[in-house]
Structure formats: structure tokens, C-alpha cells
């Protein structure tokens, strides 16, 4: 079962570009109220599922250039730990990995769609994953302030959200299941300007 959705916080709303700040204002206040600009402007969002994408095409690019992809060694026989990623289209990927590998490196090594824009430095939140089982979440060392600060800005934050680059596999996490949040925000025609 999916963990309960946290109340959406202003900050994450803003970062998601789903700005809903309203400045309904008495006109005397006009000069103070210019903040309404872009935030309340072009972008209120609705999310919909994004169209599925043929895997083969996604791969063809990565195959030609694999510079920054995760570097992990295959597990030694008998020492495999298993982790399952559920991608944005709902597809399940069960992977055998080694102790110590972090979820970002694992995902990238297997061509799953996880950006990892800051290269695992806890500075971008594009490696956000949602742990599907509270029990597994509780087995992980607690996120530190820096990770929580980034998570506060992540799209679709849930109570068992973590940053993939900060979670390393341990024997206790064998069998872990995580979901990649679907982040696509599609907008409506009434938002034309």
C-alpha cells in the first residue's frame, strides 16, 4: 500500500511550478502586490499520467554515450541483494545488486529513468524515490537534515520518500521495493496567456 500523502507544502508547490499564490487585492495596495506576476500567472498545473514511451528509444541514446551513468560492480554469486524499482509507467524491475550500492547508481546502471542531476551530492532531489514498505523505510538510517531539506522540495513528497543517492543497500534492505515518483505536470489550455 502506498504511504499517505503528506499535506502539500507551499515551498514544494512553488518549486513544482504549480504556483497558486493568490493576491486578490484591494487596489490601494497595488504597488506592493506585483509579486502576483509569474507565480500566479501562466502555470497552475494538473498532473496526468504521461504517455508511455517505447523503451527501445530511451535506450538507444544512453547506449551511445554512457559517461555519467552509475558505476557499480555486479554482485558476487551468493551475495546478491535484491531491490525492485517501479518505474513511472508502473513497470517493475527486480535487480540483483551488491552491498553498499546506492539506489541512484543502481538505477542509472540499469537505465531506469532517474536523473541524478547533482551526481549524488544531495543537492538536487532528482533522485527522489518512495519506499513502498514502511518496514523497510524504518530499517534505513534516518535521513539527515541535508537530505530532509532537499526532500522538502521534492515533487510528490510522501512520508516514506528518500533521496536515492543517500540510500545504500545493506543486507537488512534485501527485498526493498521503491517507486519512482511520476513528476510530469501537464497544464491546461486556459493557462495560455
Amino acid at each position, binding site marked *: 500500500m502506498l504511504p499517505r500523502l503528506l499535506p502539500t*507544502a507551499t515551498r514544494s508547490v512553488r518549486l513544482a511550478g504549480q504556483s497558486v499564490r493568490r493576491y486578490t487585492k484591494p487596489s490601494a495596495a497595488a504597488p506592493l502586490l506585483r509579486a502576483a506576476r509569474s507565480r500566479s500567472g501562466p502555470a497552475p498545473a494538473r498532473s496526468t499520467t504521461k504517455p508511455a514511451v517505447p523503451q527501445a528509444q530511451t535506450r538507444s541514446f544512453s547506449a551511445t554515450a554512457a559517461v555519467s551513468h552509475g558505476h557499480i560492480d555486479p554482485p558476487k554469486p551468493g551475495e546478491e541483494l535484491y531491490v525492485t524499482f517501479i518505474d513511472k509507467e508502473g513497470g517493475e524491475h527486480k535487480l540483483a545488486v551488491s552491498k553498499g550500492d546506492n539506489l541512484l547508481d543502481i538505477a542509472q546502471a540499469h537505465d531506469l529513468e532517474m536523473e541524478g542531476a547533482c551526481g549524488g551530492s544531495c543537492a538536487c532531489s532528482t533522485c527522489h524515490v518512495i519506499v513502498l514498505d514502511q518496514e523497510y523505510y524504518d530499517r534505513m538510517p534516518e535521513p539527515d537534515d541535508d537530505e530532509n531539506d532537499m526532500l522538502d522540495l521534492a515533487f510528490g513528497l510522501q512520508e516514506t520518500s528518500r533521496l536515492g543517492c543517500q540510500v545504500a543497500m545493506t543486507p537488512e534492505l534485501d527485498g526493498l521495493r521503491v517507486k519512482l515518483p511520476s513528476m510530469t505536470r501537464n497544464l491546461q489550455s486556459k493557462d495560455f496567456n
Partner: protein
Amino acid sequence: MLLFTRSTRRASAWPPLLPSRRQPRNPLWLGAPRHYSAPATRHGRPFRLAVIGSGPAGFYTAYRTMTRVQDARVDMYEALPVPFGLVRFGVAPDHPEVKNCQDKFEEVASSPNFTFIGNVTVGTASDHPDGAAVSLASLLRRYNAVVFSYGAPKDRALGIPGESLPGVYSAREFVGWYNGLPEHADLAPDLTRGDEAVIIGQGNVALDVARMLLEDVDVLRRSDIAEHAVETLARSKVRRVHIVGRRGPMQAAFTIKEVRELMRLPAVGFHPIDASLVPPDPKALPRAPRRLMDVLLKGSPTPPAEAAKSWSLDFLLSPTAFLPSDPPSDPPRLAAVRFARTTLSSPFDPQAYALPADETAELRTPLAFRSIGYRSAPLPEFAALGIPFSERHGVISNDGRGRVRHEERTPDAAMALGTFPGLYCAGWVKRGPTGVIASTMEDAFATADAIAEDWADASVRFLNEAPGQGQGPDEVNGWDAVRHEMTRGEVNKVVHWEGWKRIDAAERERGAKVGKEREKFTRTAEMLAVLG
């Protein structure tokens, strides 16, 4: 030549505009997920895309399009000789980890289907003396589609008296200056006139500016900060920084990570905030504001009285004037900033707005920065080509997924939908000047997905497809054709990716000599000199 008409009524213009690109479909794309597979070619030709701007929006759009449309050929035009936009010229030098996204951009650039065309401004003239320019009209003849991802190259002004007094700087120019942006290499801000500095605006850019003023210059010295900035900051007399907002902590635009970073600066103290602006029971707040209020209430480990430098967040103050000294000096300089106090429509509501109260307040300071946001602008040819730019929102009018679109009332009061086949936008010019790299990436991906979806849909039109329209598919050769429309002198100014790599290597070499990751060239002429 008028390429695009503003409304659908002018269907005879080139390229012909259909009443709607896909019909009937309302709302246009919110139907069931569509399974598409973007074919490699139309009319036996690969998809040719021009991307304008090499910031995160441009690169992430290029990347995603190349993974979604097989064999897509992408040419990226960049006004400066060097790539990466605000990742190079905005992101603070003490945040090197944020710049790791450049690894992905390198990966994109290494594809044989990608061409970087640096030092070329799309428009009527180069934005710097050593660059070339290519007209947008020329691109529109040579590609199937064009993505506008040129960011927000200007900044917003307050429009209050005294804004141009010496001593008042815009955050954009200050940030550009310390990051080595050629446009502001000569800023030479004077940080020696007094202890105090006032920053107007409470976004993350304001916090970046504050950190540059407060941080130990020996920490910055080791970053890729411009050398001229290190020298100036080392002589700075600023000890006390006010970051002033017109609303309260519950409404502030900054994010927790950046606040915490300032709190952690060694030997720098934070003056406690007015606790009455924090809800009485912060524990009951949702996660993000709860954690933020916690950091603000806890303050800094170093008490301000014992600190070498200190800072505060001053709330509920809206600037009304920058004041010269009285009697005025010659030439006049900034001596104080005047504010109107404000009250909030509802103090703890994140959406609360500020109302002016009768009281005014003044902060005496010889140095002020306005950090109230960047601003985008239309390209010079937009008006003539009929491409819609919303001055009000400071963005290219679009459908939210990045398709350039414009709704307009016709004389008979019906709404007409102006569509612009083959035109897309992404990043700050699409969404406005807010959002971190992660949100810009998301936004760029949405645009690229729209492009791929459209290319896969035979009923959607692109540029230069239909034969017999003057520019048939044979002419859609991208850069190979565009360069023939430029003079040889202009073409010689172009910096391709290999050229950037040489500039990059030279900067790293300069940096290695002084123990920095790189020492940036801050003049376009210096950059080009590397290439001989």
C-alpha cells in the same frame, strides 16, 4: 515577411495555420495517455531541431528529444562562446555540486547528432562585441522546429526613486560579476563605504548575495569565483547584512537548505526573527514550513554579538525610495533605503499578501542590492514574426507543455487559438524566472515530450514540411544551410563544442596554478583568444 499570424483568421499566411492543430480535442491533451513512438523521419528526412540557449532548459530539452525521437538532429545556438547559462553564470561558486548537471550536458554534446553553435546570438545583433548573430527568420527556414530556451536575460526593477544611485546594484549584475559573466565584468562594486548592506527581496538569489558578503573570502578563493571578485570581497567592509522582504517568514521565497547554509557559516551570527510572525504552534504546520520555521527560530550557533559578521531577515518592509545623503554628496550616492511597513492579509497564510501601513522605516546604508527576480524579454524579431510574448507574465505564450500558442479575442468576441507549428519553449522563458535546475529539467522534459508526441502525430504540422512552399524539405539542413547565410567573418566567430573544450581546458589550467578548479575568462575576447 510575416511568418506567423496572431489569430487563426489569417489562415492564408505562411505557414498555413489550421484552425487548430488537432481537432476536435478539448482539453487539448488531457485525454488518456497516448502511446506514441516517434518515427525517425517524415518525408524520409530526420527531425531537425534548433535550440536557442544552452542553459539547463536547452540541454535537457535536447537530451530528452534525442531519446524520444530517433535520429533527431539538434543544433544548439548560444549567444556566449561558453555553454551552460546560469549553471555557469548564476549558481554560486561555493555550490560546485549543483554544477554536476554539466556531466549530462557533456554527454548530450558528445552525440554525433548534436551540434553546439556558440558565440551566436539569435536575433538582430550579437549581445557582445566579439560575437556573431543569426536571424530567427533564418532558423525558421532551416529546421522543422525551434525551441526557445534563452532564459531570462534581464532583471526586474522596483521602479522607485533613486534606483540608479551609485551604491544600488541589481543582484543579477552582482551575481554575473562574481561569476565572471562578461556583461558585468566591469561592475566593480564598491564594498568599502560602510558596515551595512541591504538586500531587497528574500528569494534564494538574495541569500546567495548575502552569503558572498558574509562568507570567509578564503573559502570563496578556492571556488571558481572570478578573481576580480575575490580581490574586491577581500577588501569589503560589510559586516552587517539585512535581507528585507515585504511579507513574513511564512511567505518567504527562500528555501530551507540555503537558510541553513547561512546559519552554519562560522563566526557569522543571525539576529533572531520576530517570533510573532511564526504561527504559535509551529509543530502543527505541514512538514516543509515546520522544518523551515524551526531553522529560523533556532538561529545561528554563534550569537550575533560575538560574531565577526551578522545578518538578519527583516520582514514586512516594502521599499519606497533609495535616498541620497542629505545634504547630497557630489556625485550623489546612496545613503539610506526607505520602506513602507506592511501588514499581512493573514499572517500565517503562505499566500497572504502585503498591505501598506502608514508607518515608514529607514535603513541607513551605502550599499543596496535589489534581488526581486530576473526577467525575460521577447527576441527582437518576435513582433514582426507575430510570435506571442506575454509582457505581463514575462514568458512566451504557450500551452503549458511548451507549444507556442496564443488565445485571442476576435472582433466578433469569439476566442481564436493561434497555433505556431514547430515553435516550442522551455525553462525560464516558458515558465517565468523561478525554479531550481530540477524544476527546469522537468519543464524541459515536458516540452520535449510534447515535441515527440507531435512529431509522431501525422496530423500535427511542423516547419518546412510541405513541398512547394518556397522552402521544401530539401532545404531543411539546419546549421549547414544557416551558415551559408552568414558572412565568412561571422562564421569564423562561431565556437563549436571542441572550441569550448579548449577554452574549458585553458580555464582549468589557469585555475590549477592558483589552487582553484578553474579561473574563468571574464571577457569574450579572452575566451576567443584561446582559439587563436
